[in-house]
């Protein structure tokens, strides 16, 4: 009989090796998937995992794309992970991402074509404020009326999308855009632009910001009292109250942090890779970041790798679609497999599966001990 039992001791080796095992399992089973579709599995796997980074033909385009896609995912997931640890579920990072972009974009467009050093920092601040303010709506409603932050934050995504659409065709529309929706291209406005810092690397200010955030938040999570209190609140709410943790403060902090980071991610995306505010500005980073946060085990360093891996499957998946005519749906199945294996190997970190044969065997009876 197979049994799942909790491990007595935490296995550090497994904690590190589980994601690697998961990636290998995905390659094997994904390979079978591609084989069944009549594609060369080795070529497909190579296209997804290897070529975007190493192939001389593709990497020139793919490598920067990898970094560009990973940066917002990491930044947003970092913020979300703090709340998730405390059982505060911000599902609306996509909305905060849009609002961050809208506020910072409004600042930039309002000051156009002024040339000043303060515009870019001011826009960063605007991005943070936009995200934080949008996240404060579910926070305050939760504290004041005990509403469910999952629903409120999610619903606000659709409100934010409507505001984005309104801005794109209305108050932020490019006056020289011949009536087409969309704002001026901020990446072409030097004071507001967030250009590539090293040519063909994909590295822009947002990438630097993400890496700094990973380092600072790792330290913060482990050593700061708030990091401890967040873990405490998530794992044992009663104990956190007993300890004296003010849960309202933690709610404000977690939603504020995730909103702020999502907002600033929106700002960097707007001023760099996206360039302008338009109806299709948001592409789902805020939702994918939820997966990234969990793949990274809610740990900043884990999130760094999870963000890169997630980005790789997108960039590599596109490549495989393009080169081998693998349908997009198959690539999504492949990504699903990766998630599945990551979560199932995760189980092995804290649980073990044992084969219990004692029911089948007959033991010798022991004599009664005096």
């Amino acid at each position: 009989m197979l049994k799942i039992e909790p491990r007595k001791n935490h296995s550090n080796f497994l904690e590190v090796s589980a994601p690697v095992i998961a990636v290998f399992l995905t390659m094997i089973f994904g390979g079978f998937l591609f084989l069944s579709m009549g594609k060369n599995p080795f070529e497909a796997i190579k296209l997804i995992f290897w070529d975007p980074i190493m192939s001389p033909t593709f990497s020139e385009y793919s490598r920067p794309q990898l970094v560009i896609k990973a940066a917002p995912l990491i930044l947003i997931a970092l913020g979300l992970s703090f709340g998730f640890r405390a059982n505060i579920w911000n599902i609306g990072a996509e909305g905060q991402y849009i609002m961050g972009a809208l506020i910072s974009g409004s600042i930039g467009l309002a000051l156009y074509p002024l040339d000043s050093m303060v515009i870019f920092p001011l826009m960063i601040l605007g991005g943070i404020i936009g995200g934080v303010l949008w996240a404060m709506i579910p926070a305050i409603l939760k504290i004041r009326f005990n509403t469910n932050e999952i629903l409120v934050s999610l619903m606000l995504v659709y409100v934010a999308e409507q505001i984005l659409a309104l801005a794109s065709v209305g108050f932020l529309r490019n006056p020289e855009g011949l009536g087409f929706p969309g704002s001026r291209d901020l990446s072409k406005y030097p004071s507001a632009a967030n250009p590539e810092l090293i040519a063909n690397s994909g590295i822009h200010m947002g990438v630097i910001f993400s890496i700094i955030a990973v380092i600072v938040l790792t330290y913060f999570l482990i050593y700061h009292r708030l990091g401890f209190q967040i873990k405490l609140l998530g794992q044992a709410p009663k104990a956190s109250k007993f300890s004296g943790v003010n849960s309202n403060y933690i709610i404000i902090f977690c939603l504020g942090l995730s909103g702020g980071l999502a907002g600033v991610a929106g700002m960097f995306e707007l001023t760099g890779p996206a360039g302008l505010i338009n109806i299709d500005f948001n592409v789902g980073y805020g939702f994918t970041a939820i997966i990234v946060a969990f793949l990274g085990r809610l740990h900043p360093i884990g999130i760094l790798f999870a963000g890169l891996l997630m980005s790789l499957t997108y960039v590599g998946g596109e490549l495989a679609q393009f080169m081998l005519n693998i349908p997009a749906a198959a690539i999504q199945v492949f990504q699903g497999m990766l998630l599945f294996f990551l979560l199932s190997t995760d189980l092995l970190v804290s649980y073990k599966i044992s084969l219990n044969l004692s029911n089948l065997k007959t033991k010798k009876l022991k004599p009664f001990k005096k």
Partner: protein
Amino acid sequence: MPNKNIILKIEGISKEYPTVKANDYVSLDLEYGKIQALLGENGAGKSTLVKIVYGLVKPDHGKMYLNGVEYRPKGPQDARSKGVGMVFQHFSLFDALTVFENIALGLDKNLKKNELKKRILDVSKEYGLSISLDKIVGNLSAGERQRIEIIRCLLLNPKIMIMDEPTSVLTPGEVSDLFSVLKKLSNAGMSILYISHKLEEIRTLCTKATIMRRGQVVKKCDPQNISTSKIAEEMVGTSFSSPKKSKFKKGKECLKINNLSFKPLDPFGIPIRNLNLKIHHGEILGIGGVAGNGQEEFLSLLSGELKPTNGSLLFDGIDITKFNVVERRNKGLLTAPEERLGHAAVPVMTLTENCLITAEHRMNLSKKGFIDYESSKKLSDEIIKKLDVRTSGSDALARSLSGGNLQKFVIGRELIQNPKIFIVNQPTWGVDAAAASSIRQQILDLAKDGAAVIVISQDLDELLEISDVFCALVGGQLSSPENTSELNPSKLGMLISNSKE
């Protein structure tokens, strides 16, 4: 072949759980019309054994014989139909229904209403189980509820009745009522398997006892002919000393509670009504009463986790009513709640991290908001050493500790911070006798050094042993304090069953 006097024969029962061998080749004989005691510490395997007999758990090995015929219950219903009944420690009754409705609902077969009523009254008269059928269960005391469970069990004409720690929720008066019922039952030929870890009641009730330890039967004896301390040693496996109380020196007033009231938001919460109390330095105040009478609320009101709707708290002359948990702790008011896992400690955190829960500010375990894990680990090591906590070290997760060891750690964490007043709820609940004795000694030492201590406990023997002053908390109201030395069991019973007297 089988002894004619033996109704239930248990032979070599073993049951293994992932982390523990709950029953290891356990054998036991239950005789006709006898009350057989099953003794052991928490976790000794008593409950697993009776669950096997009652058909709730299937054994890995071993056999049972009922009246010489092999007995292998498929489930509780099967066990009941074969004449094995059980009265659980925790009642399964509907508060909103009447006594009669509760009994009728619990029966396996359908009887006509009048017929059933007649049978209930017959049974209750025969064994002295007085009960009124039309009362709502929610308004009944624990003793009365237990009577319902017993009647429910007796209606099925069982030959064997299993009772799992029946006295743990009863007042002393109710206990003696229960004992006379049990004696009547055994005289009428009923065999009773009586589980307990209270030695005195076993001595008054049973003539045969089986002592279990770590899943094994370690001794079979006649409790009448063996000393209580000898039984205790067999249960624990080692000998231990009982705590020594030194003479009580009353210091100046420490905490004064004025008209403390609390109205819970939760409809099932217990309101606290106009509670007044004074406690002095060096004094141990025992608060007795059955759990669920406001003990948890009372502790939370003192710790600051709950805000009172009315009243004030004066601590060493300072009004702390508006102080939060941390401010109270900094002043020297420390508490240890009843629930270890999830309230006093976090199961998935290490002992080092668990230290931070209450000791961060008072023991300077952080600087400018950043936690000093090294100091925390040192403190945790110190607690482990001082209270002899059995664990692999400060890096062990709280959940890896046994109940008793975690309790020692949780109490030690507060004691090491030198409280001015220490309030503890059920300090030795679910703790083995040796650990309980050491915890009580620590509490006595704390009071000797001049701190005030409030011990909330269901264990009256414990309160009589260590406290100077006794109050009963019943229905959220506190009785007027009495000197423990002037109390006798009947007075105690009265206090616990009714606070207004």
